[in-house]
């Protein structure tokens, strides 16, 4: 039953504004994809706390804050990073960008967490000036 590298074409890069998330639903899956400027990250669109839509949260570095009760989840590891959320996690999904299109790996099994990071960035997604001002996202500090 296990399947890997099931890459599907999800959306155009331009559909997700910088530092925002969007929900995408197919089948029984509800996934939140975020535009962090230099990469797109995807997690399950369901906060482990009360099921809040993470795609509607405010992005803080490489974390997202659930709009319902402010649980903060890492978009890289899926781990909760503030007080009560720390022992919870959400599923993460690998992404990559091809010709201005975001692809998502919806294979049932995940590979190591490093692979959650996306590949090179196509020029059309982001202004060069914004790239210059980007900072590396440090690991979550509040664990």
């Amino acid at each position: 039953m296990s399947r890997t590298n099931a890459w599907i074409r999800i959306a155009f890069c331009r559909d997700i504004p910088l530092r925002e998330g969007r929900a995408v639903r197919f089948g029984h899956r509800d996934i939140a994809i975020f535009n962090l400027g230099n990469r797109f990250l995807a997690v399950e669109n369901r906060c482990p706390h009360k099921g809040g839509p993470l795609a509607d949260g405010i992005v803080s570095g490489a974390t997202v804050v659930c709009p319902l009760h402010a649980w903060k989840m890492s978009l890289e590891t899926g781990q909760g990073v503030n007080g009560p959320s720390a022992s919870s996690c959400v599923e993460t999904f690998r992404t990559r960008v091809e010709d201005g299109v975001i692809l998502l790996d919806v294979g049932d099994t995940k590979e190591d967490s490093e692979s959650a990071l996306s590949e090179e960035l196509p020029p059309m997604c982001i202004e060069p000036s914004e790239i210059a001002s980007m900072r590396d996202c440090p690991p979550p500090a509040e664990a």
Partner: protein
Amino acid sequence: MKKLVVVGNGMAGVACVEQILRHSPKFQVTIFGDETHVNYNRILLSSVLAGEKADDEIVLNGLDWYRKNEIDLRLGVRIVGVDSQAHTVTGDDGSVTPFDKLLLATGSVPLIPSIEEVKKDGVFVFRNLDDTRALLERCRPGLKAVVIGGGLLGLEAARGLQVRGCEVTVVHLMEWLMERQLDPTGGGYLAAKMNQMGITVLLGLSTTAILGNGKVEGVQFKGGGSIPADLVVIAAGIRPNVSLGHEAGLEVKRGIVVNDYMETSHPDIFAVGECVQHNGICYGLVAPLIEQGKVLAATITGNKGPRYEGSVLAAKLKIMGVDVFSAGEIGDKLDGSEVIRYEDPALGVYRKLNLKNGKLAGAILVGDTADSHRYMDWLRSGKDLVPLRRQLLFPVPVEDAGIDVAQMADSETICGCMGVTKGTIIQAIHEKGVNTLAQLKECTRASTGCGSCSGLCQSLLKAVVPEFEEEVKKTICRCISFSEDQLRDILRSQQLKSVQEVLEIYGNGMGCEICKPALSYMLDMLWCGDHNEDRSARFINDRVHANIQKDGTFSVVPRIRGGVTSPDELRKIADVADKYRVPMVKITGSQRIDLLGVKKSDLPKMWADLGMPSGQAYTKGVRMVKTCVGTEFCRFGVQDSTSAGIELERRLENLFTPHKVKMGAVGCPRNCAEATVKDIGLVGQEGSWQVVVGGAAGKKVRKADLLVTVETTEEALEAAALFFQYYREGANYLERTYDFVERVGIEKVRKETVYATAATKQELLERLRKSKEHSSDAWLERDTPRNPTQFVQIQPLEEVFV
């Protein structure tokens, strides 16, 4: 127990009683006060007038103090007779009270210069709390006020009136202001400063008459000139109140004569304060009175020993932004004296020292009084200044800006008013476990006079008490290490217009759910909507203009101004609810209709079908104005609250605020729409509106404070708008009006809104107008979304089967 009767419940009398209570034997104490107030700090009356302090904030000893010390307090009784043979005093209520010892602390009375027709409606003196209240009652923005007298009191009164919105002119008889404390140059610097603040100063003018028929219309000067005036304050000086001294047959010259032990010519009668004359001098400032009280307390309790040998005269002007200090002998023509001067006209700084035999004889500081403690100490101690010649005007800089408390000697005075030294404070900290400013005030009385030493007291506490915590400015969150106050300054001065820019330069580059919305609001407010709005920095509600619910659906609340709707509107709402299968339709507490359980993707379509503007029920912004039917239908209504409410809502809608703003307008004091528990409320009365602010009926219940009472609806709307913009500009993000008003104080709010100068008000309204101009109904984004996926659910580009 012997009976001590004190005549006078002012600062000198009560401070002396405080000292007496520290000695034994004990007395049975009775205090008579002709005012009806407990002992209060007279020096701070000008702060009450200027709205910096409330009445109850200047109380020195409350009723519980009198009770605790078993003092019989007789307020509102004026002592009119003293029988020094029979040892009794007679009150104007006919009471006769026996005494073993009598203490006269009758203070002084205002000096009224010989002016014709001085007894007119609108002429005030400024001496006690009742005078202050009468003035406050009378002064209105725009009134022309003339203050006769350019001394300490006159200038402070002038500033107070100006803060209240009056156009103020100070008329002074002498050639320069504060001529007893300043030289002509110093007076010139002071006059320039007053002018800068918008107060007109007329010098060398003798007022001869008050003009007007029954009511003040102007003042006339010697030589024939005159100026118009709506109110006149006479602050031409004081003279010792010595009538009881005469009654008692004491030796009286200008004041009741006392010796170095504070004894009068009668063995059982004593006097202290402004009513006495010691060594030819009558003192009118607080510090000498306190020194006298200490000596007198020893004498009267049979512990005679300490002597009063006169005080160094020192005065500080208490006007915010106008620093003036003067001490000792300040004239230019002292025998054998050397004068050292420094001035910087651009900075408005003037310093002058008089040296005599290598010691400081007097000092004047205008524009910067930070060094006044050093000079006071030199004056009191008679320090040999020859070795310090190079550091007379400017001390060797210490690392810390301001005065370094560590460098002060223990004998140096921290509180000049109450005569409290650094040593005394340190002793109190060590021996009595004092560790807050309030305890320090209670224990040593330091900082209970003019209050200008509170900073020094705090630094001292900080230096000595390890756990003392100064009030730290709070930062918004961990992303940015600045307070909101500082950030507003930074954004303004650095012309920053986007949240990310601020985070990159002043923060950690990332931001979080706390600072991002706060910065978004700040930018919107500062640039009046003319900034680069970054939706990613806003909460989801402000991205899709609806309130997110627990299941991720949204609620839709259209604007129904003043809660007034129509059959058509209701029908439309019903149709929309049907069409989109809205799970719940609910009447809200704000006289509106809430459609709950709406999918994000349905929002723009519903808004279009409704054709009504956004009610902003999802954001920190203008919610609504709840109204009653007022004069429209109600048989009790006295104001048209419905129209007023609708108009108020129309003027402020679509704007963002630090926290939600709920308003109310009621047509009579029955208050059916609960305006007095709203952030802003209009309460109609017969012929007027009360504008109230800072009410709450949520987590906290708070009755709103009265901002102002005005006659017309337009004035009420303007007052509401002034407060609204003032709140927008001054409150921290997520600070409701009720917390804001409590933090700032309603007096200050009034002073800076409805009682501000015409120019200030105009500026507030102009910024509000500009913001309003840049604002729009958020629901119009149904036609022009910010981005193609603002409301739509993303569908995968290819078919997937999972």
